[in-house]
């Protein structure tokens, strides 16, 4: 009998398993980390990995607490500034870290974090099983009146029967745990894909600035620095466009990206309005224009690829003796770089509730404990996701009043450090 089984050794599975073992408030649970795939490994320097993610300070703290961060060595790349701008008018935003030692986030390769998580879990005494798929998952019936609440989850791996007091689905968007538990999900398919590749760039100075450009077509191009002169590109666009980008040869791709980073699609009416009205903000001392000087792409360093985009939020995140975390429960548009961070937030919220339940003399694998996690996580994610959706819609439109409002809004935010702090604390 295991106390906890974490299914999925991706970004969050290893971290969750390690955290439970290392908790000072739980009695050294017997934890299993399992995945159908092979054990994730640190990629060699030669093959550049194309998926990079932003690790915000809260997540970094969690990774440090579990011992995973130190395994990444010097590879996480600190980013001290984010520049956001669109291709219309003058709306631009800059967020800067107050101190260089507290960067806004770190850019790190996805497989490296998974591998670090698994290593940390192993160090903490978590049992590992790879290339082993869970089958025949049986979750106790929540309506069973006769139970003295001693029914646990059972499952099979390679024909062997196992039991666990708690099953955690950290197994991504197609979570087998979510399906076995019959947990519903509200999802929205954008018919969009995220096109990704790693490039070399000029005009990046010390390369500590992340860029993000919103285009009226709804595209978002994110440039995430990941080494001295390298950027990881995540371009979210219509599925057909992503396929087109994937089919381009290196030179064509470079010119396409560079073109989209500098073009100006401002309608004449807005230009005129801007020019004639800009004396108003100037007269009260506001900075009205932010000149963005984007990087110039010179070389494609990795294979190209794309992944489907969509957003989804589980209607329930727990079932008897079962909880889902991360992408298994929610997916968001990658433009805010929050997907993985929301997953790590789940790890924190869940672990907090389990510890609190245990110290209160409540079985931490019981409904009373898990329902608190569900409430806390759903509340936080639902609010955050509706905010993201609104922001995205705002940038998608090109109707004159909205573009003006957006430009005025961003200008005001840009001139107001308190407001900026709020944005930055939400984004990181």
């Amino acid at each position: 009998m295991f106390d906890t089984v974490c299914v999925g050794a991706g970004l969050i599975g290893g971290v969750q398993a390690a955290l439970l073992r290392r908790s000072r408030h739980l009695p050294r649970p017997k934890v299993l980390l399992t995945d159908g795939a092979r054990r994730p490994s640190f990629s060699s320097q030669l093959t550049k990995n194309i998926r990079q993610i932003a690790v915000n300070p809260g997540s970094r703290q969690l990774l440090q607490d579990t011992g995973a961060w130190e395994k990444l060595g010097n590879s996480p790349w600190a980013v001290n500034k984010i520049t956001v701008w669109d291709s219309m008018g003058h709306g631009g935003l800059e967020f800067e870290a107050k101190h260089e030692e507290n960067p806004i986030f770190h850019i790190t390769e996805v497989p490296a974090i998974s591998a670090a998580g698994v290593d940390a879990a192993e160090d903490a005494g978590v049992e590992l099983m790879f290339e082993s798929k869970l089958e025949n998952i049986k979750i106790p019936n929540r309506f069973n009146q006769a139970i003295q609440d001693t029914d646990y989850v059972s499952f099979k791996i390679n024909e062997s029967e196992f039991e666990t007091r708690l099953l955690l689905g950290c197994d991504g968007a197609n979570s087998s745990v979510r399906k076995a538990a019959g947990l519903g999900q509200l999802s929205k398919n954008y018919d969009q894909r995220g096109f990704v590749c790693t490039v070399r760039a000029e005009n990046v100075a010390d390369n500590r600035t992340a860029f993000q450009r919103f285009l009226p077509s709804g595209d978002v191009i994110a440039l995430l620095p990941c080494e001295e002169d390298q950027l990881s590109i995540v371009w979210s666009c219509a599925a057909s466009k992503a396929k087109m980008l994937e089919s381009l040869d290196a030179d064509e791709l470079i010119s396409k990206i560079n073109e989209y980073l500098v073009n100006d699609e401002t309608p004449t009416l807005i230009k005129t309005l801007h020019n004639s009205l800009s004396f108003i903000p100037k007269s009260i001392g506001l900075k009205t224009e932010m000149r963005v000087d984007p990087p110039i792409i010179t070389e494609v360093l990795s294979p190209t690829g794309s992944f489907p985009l969509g957003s989804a939020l589980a209607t329930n995140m727990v079932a008897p003796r079962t909880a889902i975390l991360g992408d298994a429960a929610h997916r968001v548009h990658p433009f805010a770089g929050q997907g993985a961070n929301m997953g790590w937030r789940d790890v924190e919220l869940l672990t907090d509730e389990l510890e609190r339940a245990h110290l209160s003399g409540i079985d931490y694998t019981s409904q009373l404990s898990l329902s608190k996690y569900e409430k806390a996580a759903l509340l936080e994610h639902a609010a955050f996701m509706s905010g993201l959706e609104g922001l995205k819609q705002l940038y998608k439109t090109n109707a004159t009043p909205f573009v003006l409002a957006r430009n005025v809004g961003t200008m005001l935010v840009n001139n107001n450090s308190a407001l900026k702090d709020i944005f930055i604390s939400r984004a990181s």
Partner: protein
Amino acid sequence: MFRRPRSLLRSLEVARGQITRSSRSIGTLNDSEVAKFGAMNRDWWDQNGQNSPLHSLNKLRVGYVRDLLRKTVSNPPPGLPLFGKKILDVGCGGGILAEGLAQLGAEVTAIDASEELISVAEERRKRKGIENLTYLDVLVEDLQEIESRFDLVISSEVLEHVEEPWAFVAYCSNLVKKDGDLVLTTINRTIQSRILAIELAERFAGLLPRGTHDWDKFVTVEELIMDLREVKFRVEDIKGMRWNPFTNEWQWSNSLDVNYLLHAKDDKSFMS
């Protein structure tokens, strides 16, 4: 309310250590109360069932014991702040409190008059493989002869169901080690408790099964303090507890009008 003949209490010399076999003629058992709770055994552990307030009450009562004793445990293993502490739970029912204390590492002995509930608790204990928890189907008066005493004796939501609460308190106190602690939680006999616990909870909203409580048997704070004084226990702390039926959450409260917790310590050294 004339609950008990106080002269009888004195004549029995129930002061700690002085309870003799003869005093066992004063029984704390109420058969109909035991039968009533025994019948609830099927869904005792259903957290969404009739006992949901008892499950969530662990936050306060286990939390209180944890904070009271944790200072006396040096270097406890992770997650076991009560490691090695000897605790007696009197009137444990299906073991909701006893298991909560055991999961924090205490060596728990839990007793109840209901054979059905003890078997529910014992079945669950076996299934979960909890080793630091012993269930006994005995009355507190039957335990008086045992040799070792307890660091802490707790009786939670029981006092309002027993016959002769004063004798029950005396028996409990007699099992506390020197310098040990006695923790009791119960319901005050006030107009508020009559309205909340009986009229609202049982009759109107049906949050508790009808007949769960008999208001006349509730024990006031004053009566309990007097009972403890008789056995030379000094009251250290009294706290009100409030239940929110909408969230099933308990909170500490300044009001002692309905549910309350009382903590007392052996006072003989203090008196002499």
